[in-house]
């Protein structure tokens, strides 16, 4: 084995085994608690039920911090389309069960700017009834934001499904669709929609108990939901990074196994 290969193998082995020097070494003592780079922002809206899973975010953030290098705030931030600091949070989560009121024209304009210039929306249907409730209202509002765009299924090779985990299944509390839908603008997909109720799968009480069973796949389906949540956050922060040529042969090799 060449020296170069040895160092690479050793490094990768160290990373995989979690034995490399720790992250704490990267900052000054006490700084880490003050640093919150990623904030999970959840959209509040009028009508319907904007907050069906109030305890969903913290477990996901813990998972994100444990599995990836992303520095994240443990709790979510609630924002509306009229909030001044909406554009301080490029990642936006929107969920609900029921029909909600249409956005005002100003809100539509704001949302369009948000999504067109680098913002990202993860929409999550907590009802799981296509054509009813949240699903109906969301599609109506997205059509108002992007009148010439349609939700389309994300291909299995989409960057969002490869941004960290190589996902083959779409997790969630239910299994309504085995796919994600999205609105594409150029090479980016600033809107991704899941109808499997991801928030329900992530939700856990303060004693550490899962609040909702995942059916029909059970805990494996829940794990898939966490993996998808992490992937979507990393996709929002790295866009099509995993489509860069340098990644392609590695990913192809692993998927072929």
């Amino acid at each position: 084995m060449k020296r170069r290969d040895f160092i690479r193998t050793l490094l990768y082995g160290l990373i995989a085994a979690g034995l490399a020097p720790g992250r704490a070494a990267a900052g000054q003592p006490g700084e880490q608690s003050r640093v919150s780079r990623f904030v999970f922002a959840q959209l509040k809206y009028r009508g319907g039920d904007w907050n069906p899973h109030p305890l969903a975010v913290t477990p996901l953030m813990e998972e994100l911090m444990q599995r990836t290098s992303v520095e994240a705030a443990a709790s979510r931030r609630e924002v509306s389309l009229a909030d001044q600091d909406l554009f301080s949070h490029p990642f936006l989560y929107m969920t609900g069960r029921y029909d909600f009121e249409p956005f005002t024209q100003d809100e539509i304009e704001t949302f369009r700017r948000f999504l067109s210039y680098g913002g990202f929306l993860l929409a999550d249907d907590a009802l799981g009834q296509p054509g009813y409730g949240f699903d109906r209202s969301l599609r109506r509002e997205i059509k108002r934001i992007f009148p010439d765009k349609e939700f389309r299924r994300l291909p299995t090779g989409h960057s969002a499904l490869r941004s960290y985990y190589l996902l083959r299944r779409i997790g969630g509390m239910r299994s309504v669709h085995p796919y994600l839908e999205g609105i594409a603008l150029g090479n980016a997909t600033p809107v991704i929609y899941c109808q499997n109720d991801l928030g329900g799968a992530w939700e856990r009480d303060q004693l550490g108990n899962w609040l909702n069973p995942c059916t029909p796949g059970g805990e494996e389906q829940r794990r898939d939901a966490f993996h998808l949540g992490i992937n979507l956050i990393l996709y929002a922060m790295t866009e099509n990074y995993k489509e860069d040529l340098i990644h392609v042969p590695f990913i192809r090799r692993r998927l072929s196994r």
Partner: protein
Amino acid sequence: MTEFFFIGGLPWWAILLVALGALALLVQQFLGLKQRLGARAGGLLTSLRALVYAALIFFLLSPGLVEKRVHKLRRPLTVLLDTSQSMSFPAAPSAGRDAEQGKSRIDLVKEKLSEGKEPLIQRLARDYDLRFYQFSTRLEPIGPASLGRLEARGKGSRLLEALREASLDGGPQAGILLFSDGIANGESGPLDESASFPVPIFPVGVGDVQGFTDLRITDLSAPEFAFRGRELKIDLTVQAYGLAGKSVPLYFNRGTNLVSSRTIAIDKEAFEQRLTLSYTPREIGPHSFSLTLPPQAGELTTQNNQREFKIEVQRDKLRVLTLSGAPSWNYRFLRMALKQDPFIDLISFVFLRTPTDSVDVPDNQLSLIPFPIDEIFLEELKNFDVLLFDDFSHRAYFNVLYLERIRDFVRDGGGFAMLGGLRSFDSGGYAETPLRELLPVELDGKGGFQTGTSLRGVLTAAGKSHPITRLLPDLRANEEAWKKMPMLTSLNQIARARGEVLLTAAPDGASGGSPLLAVGRHGKGRTLALASDDFWRWNFGAVGAKESPQNHLKLVRQAVRWLAQEPSFEQVQIKSIGGPRAPGEKIDFKIRVVKDDFTPASHAALRLRVIGPEGEQIPVEAAPEAEEGEYSADFTPTREGSYRLEAEAMLAGKPLGRDRKSFPVAFPFGEVEDGRPRPELLKKIADRSQGEFIPLSDWNESSLKRITAKLEAAAPSQAVERRQVALWSTLWTFSLILLLLGGEWWLRRTWGLV
């Protein structure tokens, strides 16, 4: 010679009317006299009156005489003698078969004009108003006595231009006798069908087309600039005369190394083939190329068998490598800015997982790839233009020794930027690494990473004019744009900068503050420090404020270009190389020098040198111009070839930068490139001007007679003098009338009528 004519004071019908009236009077008079004196006396008196009337009518016709005298004139004749370089070629290509054929074209012409008891030039001077000129690049009058001293040294043949100028010289009766090989390489295009000349031209062609041998490279078309890694095309034409049946190699060299060769099969006497050669440059900088055809036996000149040219190879795209310590919004919007720029090739590595992060799946279910440390730092780094550390600390991933490679990379001309964050500057542990000496800020190991305070980027004096922070051309508008930029919420604390500070971080409304954006140099390279991981807000925050995100995109792209030392971001720029670029002609250089903050450098030490065709170095003195930061110099090349100007400036002992530009120097005519005589052009000229083409070898006694006859036919060489004499206004005619009337009166008195 004398002619009789009538001026005609009255119209013919009036004169006829008068004549009829007179006749009627005469008839009436005769009838009356016949009764009184008889027919004989009446007839006599009537005859006398008729004579008077006839004389009066004759005078009414105003008779006159014209006296013509014809004078013979000396006709102007312009003799043009081609003294361009091609006239020094042997008149007969297969020189050496006999002494006659070995003579040059101009020698044969000189002989023809000066041989014999009464040389042709003397006869022409005797018979014509002779105007004698030589021409090459311009028309120059000479005396017949200087014929023997003429030499064919002219760098071009402005044949058509010389003919047009000379044809205006002698007037409409002139003629032109032209001695030339027919090569015309002046500004005029080919002789078109509508071309005409005001006087007859008699071209005397010299040089033998039969047996002419030449192999040449012509119509070379090569780009002045090319891009690294991108194939470039070179078009050329190979022409061959008198080499039918031969195969010759064409060598394409870069410097002394053969790039490719090609065999050209010449299948006819007048052979021409268009070729395209290709080459893919792998290095940046000036590349010298040559194309060579080996000399063939019997060639008049071998100068045209080789062509040399230079191509400046540039980057096709800026190659930017980014290492990000973690996914972040900074990375997200940095990537957006760089990926959308078609002139930037971005390779990025984002460390998605730290060594302490645990995963719940086997590695083959992760998309993570190993970071190729050795490939990047030991092999590939030199192929990048800019390296960006984005909130990245080396400590968890590789040995500090790899950072020495980065120091070397910058010292050799690369660009390096460190962007802020928890893993950057002092927080990233760089105070004790080789990067410390190249960063434009001082690291003391104590600087922390501060978040939560709203800070604004405030332009410094240097930042107002620096190309990185100049987002808008207008200074005031640029300052306003910076004032509107969204606030930042994080800052790497840095005590001092070593380079130029372009932005400081200060609470809203405050001035001063610690360095936020600083730039500097290390060796030949440039460095940049941006002490925040929050400047993505300059993009998305601006969108939220209904402003354009363009300022952020522009800032990122300008910073990368400045780091990569793009020509437009060079502090020393050769702005122009003006002048005709021909040997002996002055060439003017204009150079602009700016300081590190991109304000004009008026007192820079500017060193200029010209690298000549053989690699010789010629220092050139530069002088400051009236406009600040502008310098000028001039240089006069002595010979043809490819030259390069190099400019390097220092200010207070510190290098400001350098620039270089190549430029060709060549006579514009290409006189010796193709020495083939062109009798066909001379024939055309003769046809268009009503003259006659005469090969020099066919010149004899009758040639001059034919020329004289043609000139005479075109415009006779004589002048006619006319003198008019009026007959009716003389005393004699008046006396005759009085005498006739007096005789009639005397007879009437004698016969008792009065």
